């Protein structure tokens, strides 16, 4: 797994490069780094390898996840413009470096084979995110967000660690492959009870990362307070990594004791669906709406996790991909519009600031619409097939109630996503042409088209996953 080494080096080096180069250069450099990282990641395709004293295992699944994560990071970097208003007082180099580091952490989270890797990866990711969240030092909202994120994150880490410890106590191993076999081999009655507690606590710790209800409270506030670009990062990279880790743990390691955690995930997924969708209806701020929507999507993916099918992995991958593309697109447009409206409207992040977008910016409106449609799971977009696969996995387990609930909730979802479309197309507003950087524009169209392609020809990637 040379990618993480490379990326760490890139991170460090970009810190130094920051002395000489401007933001633009750094940005393109980071993109290049990420591309290299992807290439290195993909190099291990189709060969099960162990690294770093067997603490680290690269399988195709983990590679897919790593690629997804780097893709997400790539999009975020591509969509990143000036941090704050000017590049002088802010330090782009640090931000890019931190992003690279957290990508490293994320990759460790998706391909760990030893608890330490999980923990360290998680922490690398989180600590970097604490910083990025608070990066806008003068904004009180950012401060509050970062403190909340930090406190609750640390708390969750504590829970996770306690869980790990108990599992270790029960199985005498940190190697999850061993853990799996040990659990499988020992008779249920002879396994100490705190194994189960450990499993549950680990699950909880990771559920916090993917912001599943009732451990979702930080999400809305942190997403809201953080600078939009890092919100994008959190809702794509962090979430994907979290899900990969979660599924790796409960699916692969504790698959043998499915019954111990399935009920928890089962109910939590339903609760998450309800909380995410229903709360989103009320939101006036697009940013918060997207925050809740990311909660609700966690709910959909958890349905697959709880279904625990062979196909679940590929479903999660597909869903994450569609979700990453759609979220990145919608956030990108959101960033443009809210930046444009700052100073013009007193609440630049609300739906009102999108009114009349289609008149002078048909392109932006279109991309925004497609991304929202994809999030809402309407055909022609990747989101539809994501939902489709989720439903079909869940049905394989004959879990009828979650399906019914999921349907009601996706109907509700349509309701709040379309608030954006309605604002953009059918409301009167006064938005002149917003000028968009070339790279930004290209990336925007690429993600949009990718969403459509996923919608009409899903097997393009489905065949890989």
């Amino acid at each position: 797994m040379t990618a993480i080494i490379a990326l760490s080096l890139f991170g460090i080096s970009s810190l130094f490069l920051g002395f000489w180069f401007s933001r633009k250069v750094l940005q393109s450099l980071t993109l290049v780094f990420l591309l290299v990282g992807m290439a290195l990641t993909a190099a291990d395709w189709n060969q099960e390898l162990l690294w770093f004293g067997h603490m680290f295992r690269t399988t195709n699944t983990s590679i897919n996840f790593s690629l997804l994560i780097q893709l997400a990071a790539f999009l975020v970097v591509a969509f990143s413009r000036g941090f704050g208003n000017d590049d002088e007082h802010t330090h782009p180099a640090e931000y890019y470096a931190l992003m690279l580091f957290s990508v490293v952490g994320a990759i460790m989270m998706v391909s760990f084979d030893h608890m330490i890797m999980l923990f360290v990866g998680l922490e690398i990711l989180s600590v970097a995110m604490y910083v990025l969240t608070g990066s806008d030092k003068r904004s009180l909202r950012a401060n509050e967000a970062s403190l909340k994120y930090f406190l609750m994150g640390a708390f969750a880490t504590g829970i996770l660690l306690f869980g790990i410890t108990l599992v270790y106590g029960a199985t005498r191993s940190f190697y999850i492959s061993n853990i799996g076999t040990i659990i499988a081999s020992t008779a249920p009655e002879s396994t100490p009870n705190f194994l189960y507690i450990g499993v549950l606590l680990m699950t909880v710790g990771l559920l916090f990362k993917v912001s599943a209800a009732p451990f979702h409270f930080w999400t809305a506030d942190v997403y809201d307070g953080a600078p939009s670009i890092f919100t994008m990062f959190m809702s794509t990279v962090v979430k994907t990594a979290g899900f990969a880790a979660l599924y790796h743990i409960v699916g692969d390691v504790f698959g043998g004791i499915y019954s111990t955690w399935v009920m928890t995930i089962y109910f939590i997924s339903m609760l998450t669906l309800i909380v995410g969708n229903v709360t989103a209806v009320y939101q006036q701020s697009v940013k918060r709406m997207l925050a809740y929507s990311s909660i609700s999507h966690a709910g959909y993916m958890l349905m697959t996790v709880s279904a625990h099918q062979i196909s679940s992995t590929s479903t999660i991958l597909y869903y994450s991909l569609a979700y990453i593309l759609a979220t990145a697109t919608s956030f990108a447009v959101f960033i443009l519009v809210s930046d444009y409206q700052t100073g013009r409207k007193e609440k630049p992040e609300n739906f009102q600031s999108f009114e009349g977008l289609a008149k002078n910016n048909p392109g932006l409106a279109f991309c925004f619409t497609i991304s929202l449609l994809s999030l809402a799971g309407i055909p022609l977009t990747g989101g539809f097939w994501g939902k489709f696969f989720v439903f079909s996995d869940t049905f394989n387990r004959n879990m009828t109630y979650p399906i019914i609930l999921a349907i009601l909730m996706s109907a509700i979802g349509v309701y709040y996503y379309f608030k954006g479309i309605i604002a953009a197309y059918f409301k009167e507003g006064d938005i002149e042409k917003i000028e968009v950087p070339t790279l930004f524009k290209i990336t925007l169209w690429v993600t949009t088209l990718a969403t459509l392609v996923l919608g009409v020809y899903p097997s393009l990637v489905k065949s890989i996953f």
Partner: protein
Amino acid sequence: MSFIYLIPLLPLLGFAINGLGFPRISKSLAGIIGTIPPLVAFILSMQLFLNFDGTTQILTLSEWIKVGDLSIPLAFQIDALSIMMLLVITGVGTLIHLYSMGYMAHDKGLGKFFAFLNLFVFFMLILVLGANFTVLFIGWEGVGLCSYLLIGFWNQKNSYGDAARKAFIMNRIGDLGFLAGIFLLIQHFGNTNYADIFSAIQAGDVPDNVGLIAFCLFVGAMGKSAQIPLFTWLPDAMAGPTPVSALIHAATMVTAGIYMVIRANVLFELSPEVLHFVGWIGLATALLGAAIGLFQNDIKKVLAYSTVSQLGYMFMGLGASAYSASFFHVMTHAFFKALLFLGAGSVIHAMSDEQDIRMMGGLKNKMPITYVTFLLGTIAIAGIPPFAGFFSKDEILAHLYHHDPWMWGLAILGSALTSFYMFRVFILTFWGEFRGTEKQAHHLHESPLSMTIPLMVLAVFSVGGGLINLPHFAGGHEFLATWLAPLLPESEGLGEVSFLSLEMGAPLMAAFLPAFLAIYIFGVKKSVPSEDAAISGIQKVVYHKFYIDELYDVLFVKPIALMSNFFAQVIDFLVIDLFVEGIGKGVQYASTEIRKAQTGNVGYYVFLMVISISIILFLGLKSWIL
């Protein structure tokens, strides 16, 4: 016999030309274009009649509807019955077309008018030519449509439009019954061809719900032939131009019901209770119509009600399975009622669209031809020998006498009423001195030739029409009966009757006495019906048609209107839609509630997390350990 197709097609052609040509084709030309087709059709029918060899023949144009094992052909059937109807329709039709050229001369819609008339003739011919009930149904509804169009011909006047709608809708009610009958027939026989059905029945394959079938068909007849309870549209239908009333609402369309029952006599014969029902409905209608006719002052209304009651007679005849007699009456009635209507039309024409007989009087010098012809018509309908009406009505009565004396008695009463009100109208219109305004007085004039010729021709038929089926006792040999015999069941011979018997005498009394009474009251004492306001008591009830329209209004029209608003505004809007919207509102409410958990306080968040963790652990341990 391919020229048979021409018979219906010619009027259709006329309709097409006039319809598409309107209003470019000049009025005179339009009249001619409109009149020629029925004339030619009549000649062709005559041709058909003359060399008809008594064998029923069926000509299939094409498959019409073919679904699964149901197959309905577009087929024509030529037999004694249809030929007779052809003659009546085309014959009377031609005369009325001719008459219309004069009557409508001043109307700018003349071309349209002739188009509609031709269309009507076309559908009527389809109706009688059809070789199965479904094709009959085409004509059946088609004539309904034409009557709708023609009643509402002067549609600027909303009341006319209402009358037209009323006619169409009431017919539709009947049609539903008819349709049900058709479905039942298909259910049992697989198709609706007369030939197949009747031969099947002769072969003994009698559906056990034959009574129901016959009843459903009769419901259709009720609507079409204005029987109780679906008769109220006919008087209103007089809103249409008078030639329309003559052709559609006297001579042809309204008798479609009788035609259909005769056509389906096999079915009806199998269900005596339905026949009985038919008879009594007919009787009730006859009496009601006659009674209402007594006090009407609108000349056309009187004729309309008399039509209703005459139709009642025909159904009475059918009820007594005196099919040929009823058909005989259909024909004579076509003659004299058409004559009367046209006469009335010519009067109205002369009176510049005045229809109230209280405004008329003393027209006999001003318009002699109309006077004479109208008189002949009146005598004919009153049933005074040896005019056409006498023979036909008398034959029906004779059958009733043998069928059910009570019916017979009441029928006699009815014919007495008829004779009275007809003479009343006649006298008030033509005798005494003129009661109208000056303006009307000084352009009173005899109608043009195009109108009087039809009058005269029809007068001749009204006088001599009886010859078609002159009974034995009068030295005839019942031509019509023998002509139709192959299509009809064996009717019991009526035995010999003499002029002196009660059976013979009563009708004569019923014809003559009321006539004299009417002459005495209105001719000698010159009394004139009082103004609407002055009418009172039972007479008022009768004058207002026993308030039947109002009754229907309260029973059906208003409730449906109320229901409509209730459904639209309460059920749809307040119940169903509120529920639908309610779901959305509910979600929004839930949203405002749930988001309150997001207090923004870290401590609180952590607290909730801890709580939920402990719940999870508790449940977990409970389920796996304890």
